[in-house]
């Protein structure tokens, strides 16, 4: 049995600056076995596998292949040890055919003989049951076909150990079923397969063993046959940690934002938002939990007027006029002109939120320049606002005229949040507002959100840390693969409950097949 070990990692550690991405991780995968690596976002799954595929180099620890210790310093080394990784973002040349992409970079001595390569590709597709036309151009392909090209590319180079990073994240349920069939065929042919995932039902239906990582640490490996969802969830999310975030009782609650059955489909026909309905109430913080990329971004952008919707409506209950207005398919400017005071703290601070090369005052003006009456800029009131934010939020900056990009992440976020709440919003949406922030800055942001809640704003908070969500939010809505899988009360829910909801929706979809 032990002789069958295809790949073994021993005490692998990797740090990026002061962040420990992987800490003393050891695991094994055997030939003819599918191993799932399970963990939340940021648990270090991809980092670990990038070290095996030669993109990063471990700080310490050993890697063994076929019982011998190996050094993997580049993707080429990984190939030489028959390790191939299929990344989440495909690396393919659009105008090339599938076959051209597959043979790209191949440095064998033989003559460049395209027909022979095509024959070999066809052999591989038949052997494992892929569906692929080697002459089809990449730009004409669906995401799933592109993934097939990536897998064959790796097999073509003779890989015996395949690593797939979130292979089903971009696939429709039908395509997922096909992929799993192919993966099982490869396993039966004696390949060792590692899939990185956070979807519990996939783990249970596909893999032989599951290794769980949590916050960069190795939790353990269990046999799939001997485990169940709740055990895996607990391993994945861990025990609750107390943070002591203040939470006041919601007051004067009324429905401020009513989202009804909104739908959003991307170009590949994948449903990013699928019949999403909920209400955000004034004087309350609504948390949104979910695996990254489950539709949180699209949801917030749909409300802010930045995302085209394929169905449904977004109603705003105006507290001043008492009227109910539909915000769907309105531009942000139109929304503002309707008298809706909507504040949006986007995920991408220096991309969508602020302009890095402009100073703090000018960034304040991005929100207010339309108020100017003359043709010249009026810097006085934005300057006052900038100084007020710097003082009240304790922004560390040389002056109000410092370009925003020179400030640290926490200070940038304070400026962005400060600007957004300065308009005394009735709806405040914040996506991952504490990502990358130190503890003190994080608490400042929590306090600001609480303050807005007490002032009667409807606050929507998208977060990734379940402990924070549970302590900060009044209600927590869980989104999974573009669907709302549940809305729970923040005061009496558990991490396990949310964890199971987070991974639930895709499972339901799978059952529909």
């Amino acid at each position: 049995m032990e002789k069958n070990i295809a790949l073994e990692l021993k005490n692998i550690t990797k740090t990026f600056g002061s962040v420990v991405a992987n800490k003393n991780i050891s695991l094994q995968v055997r030939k003819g076995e599918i191993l799932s690596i399970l963990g939340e976002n940021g648990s270090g799954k991809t980092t670990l596998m990038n070290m095996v595929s030669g993109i990063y180099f471990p700080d310490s620890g050993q890697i063994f292949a076929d019982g011998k210790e190996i050094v993997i310093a580049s993707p080429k080394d990984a190939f030489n040890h028959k390790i191939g990784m299929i990344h989440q973002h495909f690396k393919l040349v659009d105008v090339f055919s599938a076959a051209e992409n597959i043979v790209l970079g191949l440095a064998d001595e033989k003559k460049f003989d395209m027909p022979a390569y095509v024959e070999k590709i066809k052999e591989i597709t038949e052997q494992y049951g892929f569906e692929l036309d080697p002459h089809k151009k990449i730009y004409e392909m669906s995401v799933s076909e592109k993934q097939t090209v990536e897998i064959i590319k790796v097999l073509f180079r003779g890989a015996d150990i395949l690593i797939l990073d979130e292979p089903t994240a971009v696939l429709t349920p039908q395509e997922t079923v096909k992929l799993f069939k192919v993966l099982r065929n490869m396993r039966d042919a004696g390949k060792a397969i590692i899939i990185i995932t956070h979807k519990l039902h996939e783990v249970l239906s596909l893999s032989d063993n599951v290794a769980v990582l949590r916050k960069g640490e190795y939790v353990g490996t269990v046999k799939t046959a001997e485990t169940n969802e709740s055990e895996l969830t607990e391993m994945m999310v861990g025990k609750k940690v107390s943070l002591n975030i203040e939470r006041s009782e919601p007051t004067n609650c009324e429905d401020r934002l009513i989202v009804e059955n909104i739908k959003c489909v991307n170009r590949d026909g994948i449903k990013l938002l699928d019949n999403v309905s909920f209400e955000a109430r004034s004087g309350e913080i609504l948390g949104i939990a979910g695996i990254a990329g489950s539709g949180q971004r699209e949801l917030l952008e749909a409300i802010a007027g930045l995302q085209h919707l394929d169905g449904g409506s977004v109603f705003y209950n105006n507290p001043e006029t008492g009227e109910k207005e539909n915000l769907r398919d309105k531009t942000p400017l139109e929304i503002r002109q309707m008298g809706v005071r909507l504040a949006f703290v986007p995920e991408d601070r220096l991309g969508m939120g602020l302009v890095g090369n402009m100073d703090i005052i000018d960034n304040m003006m991005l929100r207010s320049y339309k108020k100017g009456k003359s043709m010249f800029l009026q810097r006085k009131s934005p300057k006052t606002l900038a100084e007020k934010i710097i003082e009240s939020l304790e922004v560390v900056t040389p002056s109000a005229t410092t370009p925003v990009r020179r400030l640290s992440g926490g200070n940038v976020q304070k400026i962005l949040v400060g600007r957004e709440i300065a308009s005394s919003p009735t709806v405040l949406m914040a996506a991952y507002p504490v990502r990358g922030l130190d503890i003190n800055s994080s608490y400042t942001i929590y306090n600001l959100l609480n303050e807005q809640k007490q002032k009667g704003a409807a606050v929507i908070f998208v977060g990734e840390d379940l402990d924070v969500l549970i302590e900060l939010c009044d209600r927590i809505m869980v989104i999974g693969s573009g669907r709302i899988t549940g809305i729970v009360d923040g005061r009496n829910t558990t991490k396990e409950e949310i964890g199971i909801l987070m991974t639930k929706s895709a499972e339901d979809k799978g059952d529909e097949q």
Partner: protein
Amino acid sequence: MIITIIQRAVMQGTPLLLGSTGEILTEKSGHLNLGIPGIMYVGAISGVAGSFLYENSLANPAAINPFLAVFIPLICSLLGSVLMGLIYCFLTVTLRANQNVTGLALTTFGIGIGNFFGGSLIKLVNLDVPSIALSTTSTIFKTPLPFADKLGWFGDIFLSYGFLVYVAIIVAILSSFILNKTRTGLHLRAVGESPETADAAGINVTKYKYLSTCIGSAIAGLGGLYYVMDYANGVWSNNGFGDRGWLSIALVIFSVWRPSVSILGSILFGFLYVIPTYIPNISVSAKKLFEMLPYVVTIIVLIITSMRNKKENQPPAALGLPYFREER
């Protein structure tokens, strides 16, 4: 007269063909080299300088060695243009400077170099006319293929040119073959389309960029050499090369990045260039309108290819973008 027009069109088109083939190879690696006009100038003046020194070292022009008379300017021209290519590569590949700015600077620089050394040589000969004539060398460059004068119109149209015309066509066909049928070509195209993909596949992106740019510059430089030695009968005069460098770049777009199409395109451009001379009683302003035609045709091609939006007819996807490996 038709035969003469065809001959003139081919001769007029040859520098454009060499320039555009060189530029296509460079652009396929993702580098928009707007220095091509300057590089062609340098290719021309280096060849002229080499040839000038060789001719003047001889006591009697009749005693010229035909091999050396071709070999010396050829090598000088190649060295000059490759050096220009290296400057461009160092700036844009290694230092990742802006390609457009670097290219335009090289064009200004190359034209300056050409006119400076051209002017110096003209001073050396102390003639009344502001040009140098290398007629002996030019005669050798212009030697047509054998039997050209014995096969009637066939010989006139196909065999009557100096060897560089055939070199230009062979280089274009060869480039086309390498780009589309060989592993090297596949790798080169991958570098221009998506350097990060090529890098991940183990292709040395920097090496391909340097090689294709330098080889492309060398080919383009030959276009300059051909112009002086063959087309202009060995007469160098400052700014004589005109806007042919820009026409070469327009030809790249016209031929939708295909060297084989460029062969026909160059003859068409050459035709449009010479046709006003053969129209009787043409006014100066009408002549200028004709000179404009190649650019108009290029714009029309751009409009058509953009409207049809066929992926194969678009420029290489990473054209003009610097590649940072760290960003993957």
